[in-house]
């Protein structure tokens, strides 16, 4: 029998994050192109009688399309960019074992660069009172663990009992 350690992060995570990020960037590019095409369509359709209306449609399309692009770039793309950095930092960081009772709270915080985390309360540990758990890993983490591996204050892995040799 040996301790079973569940790793919350792996190199596959980075590939998956990068893939998602590329999809979102492609979506933003598609939204920008569609917006441009719609605006050009309104320009082409303009004549003396409807010019003002077409210009208005053009501006409205451009504004809405631009907002969609901004929203994609500022939210999912940025979140994934920093999630990748966070994952890399965890994978390469110094690991520290922490023992105690862990409770994943509902308190969600955004650390620097907007990466979303859940606070994990720790009881009975010597030096650590709270850790943070990457929001995307919440479902993977067994809150009843008594020992976790922490990197820079984030939970990177946990011990989930024992497994047979």
């Amino acid at each position, binding site marked *: 029998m040996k301790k079973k350690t569940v790793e919350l992060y792996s190199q596959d995570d980075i590939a998956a994050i990068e893939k998602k990020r590329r999809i979102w960037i492609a979506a933003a590019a598609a939204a920008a192109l569609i917006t441009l095409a719609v605006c050009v369509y309104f320009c082409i359709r*303009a004549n003396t009688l409807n010019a003002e209306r077409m210009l208005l449609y053009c*501006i409205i399309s451009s*504004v809405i399309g631009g907002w969609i692009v*901004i929203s994609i770039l500022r939210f999912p793309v940025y979140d994934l960019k920093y999630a990748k950095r966070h994952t890399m930092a965890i994978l390469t960081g110094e690991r520290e074992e922490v023992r105690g009772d862990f409770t994943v709270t509902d308190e969600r915080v955004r650390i620097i660069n907007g990466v979303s985390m859940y606070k994990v309360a720790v009881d009975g540990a010597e030096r650590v009172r709270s850790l943070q758990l990457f929001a995307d890993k919440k479902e993977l983490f067994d809150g009843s663990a008594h020992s976790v591996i922490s990197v820079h204050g984030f939970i990177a892995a946990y011990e989930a009992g024992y497994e047979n040799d």
Partner: protein
Amino acid sequence: MRTIKRILSQLHRYVLWALISAVVWAFVFTRITDASPKRKVTVYTDAPAVSEITLEAKLEEELPDGIKMVKVRHFTYAAFNSDAPSEADILILSESSVKEHLDMLSPIPRDPREGDYVEGGSLYGIKVFDLASGSAVCGEYFTYTYIVSETPNQNYYLCFNKDSIHLGGWNGSADDAALIIAEKILSMK
């Protein structure tokens, strides 16, 4: 709540984009839909009011060869519009404006009729509104009199810019589109 907060944190970007869109598209749209001076006849007026869009559409129903659009510009006090009269081909001006802008007007090589604006024996303006009788050319599109204003009402004349590139043989222009459009205006009640 968290989502709204995040969106609000980007509010300045959304507002900035809306402003940029409005300015850029107003500029680009005008550039795309406008025609070069060679393919455009411009009518400028300082009459109290003109239905610019409907008049443009009416005049564009039958365009002279090589002309893509007719632009009707109305006098405003806007600074960027200050050069509009010099860029126009046809000018519909009040009597005082004709006197003021006489140096930029082309003499019209035809016999003047009663009431037309003649200076030094040359015809410079064809009367389009007679204040005394109230008879008006193109009255459906132009309002020639002020109802309440400190500006006195005047006669109005149709004139041609001597630098127009649409005056045909008058000044050696390649085409006579301004004359065709002017004829159309003069024929409209």
